C-alpha cells in the first residue's frame, strides 16, 4: 500500500514537472513563432536610419528604439537610487542591527517586499497629486517619478540580498579580522563585503531585471504609448513592457501585432540575459574580483 503511494507520488512529481515545462515551452515557442520574423532593424528604428536614431538626430516614430531607450534609462536611474540605500540598509541589518529592532525591521522590509507593484505605483501617483496641491501644474507623472517608485519596489530585494549575503559568511571568517585588530568598518569593507560581493552583485542584477519587467508601477507614473526618446527626467517616456501591454489592447493591424510579439521577445531576451548574468557572476566572479 505504502509502496503504491510512494510510486504514485514519484509519478505525479514527474508529471508536474512535465506540465510546467510544457506550459513554459508552449508559450515561448508560440511567441517565437509569431515574432521571429518581425525582429529586423526596422523593428527598432522604423524608417529612420539607425545612425540618425542613435545620435538622436531624428525622432523614431514607428520603431521600438524610444521604448528600449526609455527602459534602459529607467533601469539606470532606479538602480542608481536604489543601490546605495539598499546595500547600506542591508549592511546595517546584517552587521549592526541588534535586539528588538531587528524583528521589527525584518517585518517592515518583508511588508515592503510584499506590497504589490501597482500599489507602489499608486503611492507614487498620490505623491504627485499631493505635491500638485502645493505646486499647481508643475508636477506631473514623469520619468523621475517612475524611477523613484521602481527604486522603492526593488529596495527590499537589495536589502535582503545584501543582508543574507553578509549573514551567511562563516563565523570564523567573521572573527578573523577583528582578532587581528580590525575595526568594525574595516572588517566590513576589507573582509565581509569582498567576501559576499558576488552574491550582492547578483542580487543587484536580479533587481535590475525586476525594474526592466515591471509594468504596473510605470503604468501609473508617467509611461505613455508615444513620447519619443526621453528628453528630460521630468517628461513622459516610453518603455518596453508598457509598449507590449499597449499593443495587446490597442493594436490596429497584423503588422503592429507582429511588432508587439517582437517587443515581447526582446524584453524576454533582456530579462533572461540579466538573469543569466546574475547566475554567472554568482558562480564565477568571486575569485576574479578578489584577486586583483
Amino acid at each position, binding site marked *: 500500500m505504502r509502496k503504491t503511494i510512494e510510486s504514485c507520488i514519484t509519478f505525479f512529481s514527474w508529471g508536474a514537472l512535465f506540465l510546467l515545462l510544457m506550459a513554459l515551452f508552449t508559450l515561448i515557442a508560440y511567441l517565437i513563432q509569431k515574432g521571429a520574423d518581425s525582429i529586423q532593424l526596422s523593428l527598432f528604428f522604423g524608417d529612420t536610419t539607425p545612425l540618425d536614431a542613435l545620435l538622436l538626430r531624428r525622432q523614431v516614430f514607428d520603431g521600438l528604439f524610444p521604448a528600449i531607450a526609455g527602459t534602459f534609462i529607467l533601469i539606470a536611474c532606479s538602480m542608481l537610487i536604489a543601490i546605495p540605500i539598499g546595500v547600506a540598509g542591508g549592511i546595517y541589518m546584517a552587521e549592526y542591527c541588534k535586539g528588538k529592532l531587528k524583528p521589527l525591521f525584518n517585518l517592515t522590509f518583508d511588508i515592503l517586499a510584499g506590497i504589490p507593484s501597482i500599489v507602489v505605483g499608486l503611492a507614487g501617483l498620490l505623491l504627485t497629486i499631493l505635491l500638485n496641491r502645493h505646486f499647481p501644474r508643475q508636477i506631473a507623472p514623469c520619468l523621475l517619478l517612475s524611477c523613484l517608485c521602481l527604486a522603492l519596489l526593488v529596495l527590499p530585494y537589495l536589502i535582503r540580498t545584501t543582508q543574507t549575503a553578509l549573514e551567511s559568511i562563516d563565523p570564523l571568517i567573521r572573527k578573523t579580522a*577583528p582578532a587581528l585588530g580590525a575595526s568594525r568598518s574595516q572588517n566590513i569593507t576589507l573582509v565581509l563585503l569582498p567576501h559576499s560581493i558576488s552574491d550582492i552583485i547578483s542580487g543587484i542584477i536580479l533587481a535590475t531585471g525586476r525594474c526592466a519587467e515591471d509594468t504596473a508601477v510605470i503604468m501609473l507614473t508617467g509611461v505613455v504609448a508615444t513620447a519619443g526618446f526621453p528628453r528630460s527626467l521630468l517628461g513622459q517616456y516610453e518603455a518596453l513592457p508598457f509598449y507590449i501591454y499597449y499593443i495587446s489592447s490597442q493594436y490596429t493591424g497584423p503588422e503592429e501585432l507582429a511588432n508587439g510579439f517582437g517587443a515581447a521577445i526582446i524584453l524576454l531576451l533582456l530579462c533572461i540575459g540579466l538573469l543569466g548574468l546574475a547566475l554567472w557572476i554568482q558562480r564565477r566572479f568571486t575569485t576574479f574580483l*578578489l584577486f586583483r
Partner: protein
Amino acid sequence: MKIQTQSLCFYYHRQQVLRDINLHLPANKITAITGPSGSGKSTLLMAFNRLWEEIDGCRISGEVFMHLNGQNTNIYNPTLPLLELRRKVGMVFQQPNPLPMSISKNIAFPLRLAHIHDKRLVGQKVESALRKVALWDEVKDRLNDDGRLLSGGQQQRLCLARALVLRPEVLLLDEPTSSLDPDASAAIEELLLSLKTKCTLIMVSHYQDQIQRIADLHVQVLNGQCSISSNSLPENPSNRLSMN
C-alpha cells in the same frame, strides 16, 4: 604576572558559562587550557582579546589586567582602544583561516588595518614573519598565490605568521593543531616553544600529550570554574625531564 583576572564571569544569553575566575598567568610561559567540550575554554580565551564582543548575546563581568607596553592595564577599561588591544593580543583559531587573498596580502593584512602602507617596510615585515614560522623557504616563490591553496599545516603557519606580524605580546591559540596531521602539529609545537621568548602564549588544547610536551602551566575549566596547576606533575617523571 602578565595576565590577571579578577572575579571574571561570562554569560551567553541567560546561561552563565564562567563563574568567578581568578587567574594569574606569568609572562613568557605557555599556559594550556583544557576542559570538556562546551565548558567555556574558547570563551575564556576570547575574554583576553575581547573578541566575544563580536558575538551576539555575550556578556561579561569582572576585570582582566594585562601587562601591555610596560604598564599594567585593565583591558575592560572603556577608554582603552579596543583595536590596540587586539593588535597586542594575537589569536590563532582551530581551523586555519587564511583570507581569500594572496599569501603576502594575508600576512600584510594586519599592517593594512593598522594603516602601515610603506611598501618596503611591509615587505620586510612579511618576510620576517614568514621566516619566524619557517614558511619563507616554502612559499617565497609564490607569495602571490591564494593563501587557501597551501596545505593545512602551511595554512596554520600562515595564520600564525599573520598573528605575529604586529609583534603581539600575548598570543591566544584555540586548539591550533587539532585539524592538522601529526607532522604539521609537531612543526607548530616547535614554533610555539620558540615563541616563548617573545610572547606569553595561552593555548586551548585537547591533547594531554601535547600539553605535557610544551605547556608550563595547566588551567582546567570545569563547570565554569578554573583550577590552575604547574605542569610538572610529580607522578609523571618523563614530563619533569622534558620540562628541564
